[in-house]
């Protein structure tokens, strides 16, 4: 009466090697996570010139496709003390100064938004009202002291923040995601997914901002930058992070 071989093992199992035990230990895990974050950071810095070329090409393509009047894509640079020239893509758009129609349109739009917010549910209502109120407040501030940003600067600042977020993403993920997720593949996948989103959405975002500015006049610039700029980046990154952190280890 002998059982099939699958049921019995007469030879003792081989003990794990020292390297395996180190990799499975807590310290080894942390070390691997740190190495991964450092490697990804190095990679993103190395890929930055190629990414800039990609963004240029994407903007060029989109602008040739989109009937956005008087728009030019190019690069602007920022002098950083430890870095030197920090180049980012930007879009220049020649916009006339806001006339009375634009003022009326913006004021009316904000007031309408404020009133229409009462149709929404309470939590969303107060947020939309806050947005309308914020836009009204920025209009008042601009009436008191006009801003001297143009669209190129606006898009350049947006791109600086987004690229900064992209470059610091591996470290941020190492601090927030790698300490929860133990699978190296999932760590890598989550970081690459968020990075890919940032890379792909940057030209779209710049162009959408330029189009909105053309549509709403430069009066909307503060609202667009302060509400739909870096804050929106963080929200998107958090949304993807929250999704990545819920991935299960076993299917189903």
């Amino acid at each position, binding site marked *: *009466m*002998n*059982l*099939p071989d*699958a*049921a*019995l*093992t*007469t030879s*003792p*199992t081989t003990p794990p090697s020292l390297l395996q035990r180190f990799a499975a230990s807590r310290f080894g895990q942390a070390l691997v996570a740190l190495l991964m974050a450092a490697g990804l950071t190095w990679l993103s810095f190395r890929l930055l010139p190629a990414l800039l070329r990609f963004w240029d090409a994407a903007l060029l393509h*989109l602008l040739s*496709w*989109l*009937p956005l009047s008087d728009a030019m894509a190019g690069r602007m640079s920022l002098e950083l003390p430890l870095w030197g020239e920090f180049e980012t893509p930007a879009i220049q758009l020649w916009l006339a100064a806001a006339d009375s129609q634009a003022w009326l349109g913006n004021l009316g739009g904000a007031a309408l938004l404020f009133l229409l917010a009462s149709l929404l549910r309470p939590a969303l209502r107060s947020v939309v009202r806050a947005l309308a109120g914020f836009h009204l407040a920025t209009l008042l501030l601009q009436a008191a002291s006009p801003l001297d940003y143009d669209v190129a600067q606006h898009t350049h600042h947006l791109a600086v923040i987004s690229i900064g977020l992209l470059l610091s993403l591996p470290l941020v993920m190492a601090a927030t995601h790698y300490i929860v997720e133990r699978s190296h593949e999932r760590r890598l996948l989550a970081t690459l997914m968020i990075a890919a*989103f940032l890379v*792909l*959405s940057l030209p*779209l*975002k710049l*162009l*959408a901002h330029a*189009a909105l500015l053309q549509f709403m006049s430069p009066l909307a610039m503060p609202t667009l930058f302060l509400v739909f700029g870096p804050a929106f980046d963080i*929200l*998107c*990154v958090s*949304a*993807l992070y*929250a*999704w990545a952190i*819920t991935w299960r280890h076993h299917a189903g």
Partner: protein
Amino acid sequence: MSPLQAWLAFVALCAFGLLLPFLPALRTLRRPEARNPAPEAEKDAPARIEAFRGMVAQQFAQLLQVVRESEPIQGANESGRPFIVLGFNKHLAECIPPATRRLRSLVLSAGHLDIPGELVCDREIFAEGRINVAHNAVVKSVLSHRDIAIGIRARVTRWVRSDRRLDVAEGGSVKGFASAGIEIALARRTRFEQLEAPRISFGRQPDSPARPALEDPVARFDPPSRRGEQLGNGRNLVIPPGHTVRGDLIVAGLLEIGDGCRIFGQLRADKGIVLGQDVQIEGAVYADGPISTGANCLVSGPLISASSLRLGPCSRVGKPDEPSTLAADELLVSEGCVAYGTVRAGRRGEVIDTRISA
């Protein structure tokens, strides 16, 4: 492509990019709120035991009937896991090669079951009769309708459940959850984590019965003055020997109860609690720091420490008709102690060999 179409396509692209990160959130939001319990919550040992019991009743009840008077049956279930079903008076050692050190089969027996020494069993074990786990064996999970005896230096790694009585011999180890329908008896130098039984005895029990409880005495306690010589900063509290206190004692520092005191109320201390000998407490004892008790203490309520707890010889926790809880991160129980209800050790639980520690 006309300008309008280009704009529409661009707006659609932007909307897609805008919504893409929020799709999982919106999808979760659309789901009904009532959801299945978290998978972590399903992993309770009692639930696993019941699941195993149900699996045995469902899948192996007929097989156990068939095998009673016949030869053992081996095979694999639907998911391809091998099993061995033994009848009466059949020994597991006869069914496996002599040199086997690791057994990857489910083992079920219609009668008594003996697990040979030095064997490592990777799957659950079930017997309708008594189960003897011989010395140095390692078993994962054991379920019996009758008694279970864990031999010298044998180990249980997940759970063990006896519907009657569980005995763990000297040096044995019960990692995980152990429960018994009547009693769990642990010999000296055994290690444990979670125990649950109407009566749990640790080590050799004293010959003399427990002392009779005193009748309702009159409270007598003079609170020491804060500026007194024995109390420094006012955070610690010392109850001198022989006092009776009615009320809760809540102390920010160390709480010391002298020998022979009786407390009707809860004890709670941030730093630690030291109970003398023959202390009786009708209430719960909680401390964030260590708790140590002298010999012959009686605690009727839960006795819980967030760090370590050392129970003196011949102490009692709970009563037969009022089960209680004994819990600590590091739990050292002297011989002769008895607990009624639940015992939980977070990191380390051990029955101390009083001969050595003395």
